[in-house]
């Protein structure tokens, strides 16, 4: 009863949700939501370059977002500009450069809406492979550095003093963030990826009492959001990215209501 493209989108979307779950928790804990935004805005530039030089979109996005991320890390140490100003500066200038470049590439047919908000029709078998293979690598590395990045998230000084090498894990984590944007840009779109990182994790927060619970719940909430979002996208003929984010938002609101009802969840 479902078309092949829908099944492909479902498989890819679930793969993405499994990766955005734990990374989204870290983004929330570390207050990096705007950082994620900046990376995903810069991803549009990556997409444009991928078309211009006909290379793989995910690879190109990973390179551009990763570069922007590292640029940010080094600029944050060097300039006196406040962190959020710096993020805004890079977010909008890379987005603008991407859009200007699209203008130059008039010979290629572009689906701008698809780039910004995601397109389930565009998910190919190759994309599924990229999502799952890339996702497994990201999760594997994240699992490996988890102890260190978690300690650094709780307190940088403690982690540094007690040999957890927080700078190294911060650096790797930043690249993983660029990686998750790279594998999900086609599905979710440049403007909305941060939503899939943040909203399921925020939903999970009010339902969990320890970090592991929150990670597992945010994966589950992400998967449910993807499934609900894709079905409604199919039924209502809406863009896949916004539909998934709206589904996630509905779950978030439901979690707030249940949170209020049960009072504090603290044991």
């Amino acid at each position, binding site marked *: 009863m479902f078309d092949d493209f829908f099944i492909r989108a479902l498989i890819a979307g679930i793969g993405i949700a499994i990766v955005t779950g734990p990374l989204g928790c870290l983004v*929330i*804990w570390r*207050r990096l939501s705007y950082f994620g935004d900046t990376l995903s805005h810069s991803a549009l530039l990556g997409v444009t370059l991928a078309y211009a030089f006909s290379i793989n979109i995910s690879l190109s996005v990973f390179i551009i977002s990763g570069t922007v991320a590292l640029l940010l890390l080094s600029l944050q140490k060097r300039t006196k500009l406040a962190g959020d100003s710096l993020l805004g500066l890079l977010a909008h200038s890379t987005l603008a450069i991407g859009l200007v470049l699209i203008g130059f590439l008039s010979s290629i047919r572009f689906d701008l809406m698809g780039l910004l908000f995601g397109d389930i029709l565009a998910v190919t078998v190759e994309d599924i492979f990229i999502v799952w293979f890339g996702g497994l690598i990201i999760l594997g590395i994240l699992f490996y550095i988890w*102890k260190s990045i*978690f*300690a650094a*998230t*709780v*307190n940088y*000084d*403690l*982690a*540094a*003093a*007690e*040999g*957890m090498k927080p700078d190294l894990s911060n650096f790797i984590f930043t690249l993983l963030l660029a990686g998750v944007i790279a594998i999900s840009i086609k599905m979710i779109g440049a403007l909305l990826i941060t939503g899939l990182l943040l909203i399921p994790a*925020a939903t999970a*927060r009010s339902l*969990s*009492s*320890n*970090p592991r*619970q*929150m990670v597992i719940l945010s994966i589950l909430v992400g998967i449910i959001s993807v499934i609900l979002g894709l079905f409604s996208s199919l039924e209502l003929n809406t863009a896949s990215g916004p539909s998934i984010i709206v589904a996630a938002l509905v779950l978030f609101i439901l979690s707030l209501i249940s949170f209020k009802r049960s009072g504090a969840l*603290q*044991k």
Partner: protein
Amino acid sequence: MDQNKLLVKLENAGVYRSSKWLVRGISLEINQGQIVTLIGPNGSGKTTTAKMILNILNTDEGLVKGNANKMAYVPQKINIDWTMPLRVIDFMKITSSLNNTQITESLVMTGVDKLLYNQIHSLSGGEFQRVLIARAIAKKPDLLVLDEPVQGVDFNGEIALYNLIKEISVNLNCGILLISHDMHFVMSTTDHVICLNGHICCSGSPSNVVKNPEYIKLFGEHNSETLSYYQHQHDHSHNHDGSISK
């Protein structure tokens, strides 16, 4: 004490940030089983010095020679974001893999074992401070750095915790660097006091340091109640000058 292993040594170390020296010319060493205390006014570089020892800050001058296998740290201030659900038991394990017995043992020592499954955010200031100390000692470190470890703890608890710190240095035979305002404890249990004000003003055994003119100058020029307390300590010693390291 001399045959004990040297855990960390600073040689003329300094940290330069935002076009000024936070601390400069710091030389000190901490040995196994020794309690070294840093005292000094606000902004005198006590925490900065501790962070050099812990390799959190890189020195811009001088050397840090670390010899300790396992360091544990009780920072002066920790803010854990509400967005992270974290129980005491989770917090205890953030930098090392401890089993529940080890965790409970050290929580019993600081008197907060009942809070094992409580959320970190629900603890009072004093309770959290006890958890911080328990976490540090559960690791069985050979160098323990405590930055104002009893802030917010009630008076009786304070005495018990200071006794515990003394006990730990004996039982674990670890070196302890303590930043403290409590002169009673400093005077009664510390082996070596370093009086800091951007540089080392004076150092030595507690009884010598209080007689040092640098010490008197530093703590005598203010008039707050705390400092008259320092002065009071000073009033009790009637000998001649101690040695000056600088």
